[in-house]
């Protein structure tokens, strides 16, 4: 299928330090994958590398999406193909309202041109407002959000909900959720979990990066992968989360000969 995200032998480094060291993973439209791994193992590096952050250098490997090698593309071109990243730490853009930004973003990803050239044609205001309001209601996001400045002064939980709202509005084919559940209270995890699972379907495949199986109670992944030191060391089904929950990462580290001291805590 051409909408699959296929990652082959990917190597990514940050400031000259290799972080992702030969990673293989395929996420198909309609599938739910979970990616788990200790702090500093490279989960966010993978996510940002896939989206094309300029500080995350892809040294080698391939990422095929929609049948295209996306590593040559700008982040906006990847977004247009249907790739989406919900950030672990969303960036604040002061002075820019969420609604204004989302209208430009939605217009951009929906426009017919695929070459990433600028599209100044905006979705008509009324149409956009209607759609936004409907999705906000559906996700239990407060009305005032639309007028607030993007992620500026948002609480941790508000930011994550805003990420899911963007996901709902941009209707990607593959979404990477980088710890969308952390920083959320129990109720919010449920709301986010339920809303993501309502979005998951044959049109949307997701890669959920998480530390907590709680979110996975709402969105059952078919596949669970363990990332250690820049490589996926084990893949399996739901039962893998149970193993981790019971034993932690140590037995796995031992098994694959990875010293804990290599990891740096990024929190």
């Amino acid at each position, binding site marked *: 299928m051409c909408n699959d995200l296929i990652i082959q032998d990917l190597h990514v480094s940050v400031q000259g330090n290799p972080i992702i060291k030969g990673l293989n993973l395929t996420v198909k439209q309609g599938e739910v994958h979970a990616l788990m791994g200790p702090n500093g193992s490279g989960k966010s590096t993978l996510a940002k590398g896939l989206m094309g952050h300029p500080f995350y250098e892809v040294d080698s490997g391939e990422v095929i999406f929609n049948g295209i090698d996306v590593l040559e593309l700008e982040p906006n071109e990847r977004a247009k193909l249907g790739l989406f990243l919900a950030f672990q730490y969303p960036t604040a853009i002061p002075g820019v309202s969420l609604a204004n930004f989302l209208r430009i973003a939605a217009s951009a990803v929906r426009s017919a041109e695929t070459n990433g050239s*600028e599209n100044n044609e905006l979705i008509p205001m009324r149409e956009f407002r209607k759609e936004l309001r409907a999705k906000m209601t559906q996700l239990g996001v407060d009305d005032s959000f639309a007028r607030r400045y993007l992620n500026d002064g948002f609480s941790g939980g508000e930011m994550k909900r805003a990420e899911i709202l963007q996901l709902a509005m941009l209707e990607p084919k593959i979404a990477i959720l980088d710890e969308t559940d952390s920083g959320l209270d129990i109720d919010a995890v449920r709301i986010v979990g339920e809303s993501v699972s309502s979005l998951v379907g044959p049109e949307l495949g997701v890669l959920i990066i998480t530390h907590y199986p709680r979110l996975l109670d709402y969105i059952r992944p078919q596949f669970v992968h363990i990332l250690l030191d820049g490589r996926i060391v084990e893949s399996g089904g739901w039962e893998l989360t149970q193993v981790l929950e019971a034993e932690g990462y140590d037995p796995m580290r031992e098994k694959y000969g990875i010293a804990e001291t290599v990891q740096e805590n990024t929190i």
Partner: protein
Amino acid sequence: MQKGDFSKDFVEKIAQDEPQWMRERRLEAYALYESLPMPHTTEDDIWRRTVDMRTQDYWRRTRRHLRGFAVENYHPAIGLNGDTSVEVPKDSEDAAGVILQLDGQHQHTSLSAELEKQDVYFADLNTALKERDELLRDYFMTKAVTLETTLKSGNIATRNKFDALHGAFWQGGYVLYVPKGVRVGVPLRVYIRLAEEQHADLSHILVIAEENSEVVILEDNSSMNQEAGGLHSGAVEIFAGQNANVTYVQVQNWNRQVWNFASHRAVVSKDAHLCWVTATFGGRLNKLNQAIVLEGNGANAQMLGLAFTDARQHLDVSTAQEHVSPHTSSDLLYRTVLKDRSQTAWGGNIYVYPAANYTDAYQKNDNLLLSERAHADTLPGLEIQAHEVRCTHGATAGKIDTDQVFYLMSRGLTYAQAEKLIVDGFFEPVMERVPMESVREELQEFVSRKLET
């Protein structure tokens, strides 16, 4: 038309049909102009930032910018054949009054019958000199922009060669006089244009709002010809009378060949309110002195600055907020975006007189650099002589944030769209305080155009 030069003979020529007092003031200004050396950008502290700041090489510093400036290259003129084909811009349609000026020569004035009936006076300065001799004699360069400044802030020159030049050779500009108690609900619009090659615009602006009056002025300074070299040496004097409410918006969009020197000053009386918006987009080199004097108890002023420079433009702004009386407040917010190799310097000073207790004074300057080669200097300052004072000041300068750009691009925006949104967001705290929707839209338009070129 008589094209002149900056000589004493020409001062006499300009003054020949003017009242004796004006002739004397011109000659006095000329004497000062002659006695002052051309500002030296290495020796004269106040002009130190009016040059290329990237290099510490003094010889090269002086070579850039002011060194390339010679007053002889520009010409004041009188009786210029009005190119009456210049049309009054469309956006003036619902203005309560309009003045259009081209190359220092008055082209068009209109004022609504209603305002005329209320004795609002709105005329070009040369006409006003004939019709309102007393008024001008009282206010013209006597209380605000004066040859010897009465300001306490050290960042504004005591005697400025360009103010003297202006005092000697001024032509054009306008007077707006709003009598006591008159509230002008609709804005007045002014268009000041430069067109002729090597022409000097020496407009003098005088806004006098009497007790309890209210008025909004939107003024637009721009070039008709994008290639023509030019000089602007201007002055703005604003008087907000007791309990008056004045909004003055000046948009400066000279072409990139124009050397721009200006002194702007406002005197705010008891309980009066001034909202002052200065938007700078044009000019080759700009040296702007802008000061407010909060003279009466309870006077309040907002100074909003919005600037966007590109190419090799240089913008040097010195501001002063002088609190003379108790219970006065002022709030300055200047935001600048820089592109290409442009440079800006902002130096601000809050000066609180010993008597001015219960003062609130705020000052903030932020700069957003869109290119590696742009450069912003920012120097906030405070001088406080009173005890009961609340003051804050701050300054920032930073490059466009990669993570912000990435975040927006990851949602489908092109680099240009992301940059535009970040710039718009950066200007938003200024924009949201600009009083009128139409003005905000106009400023937005200028910002967009700057981003596109």
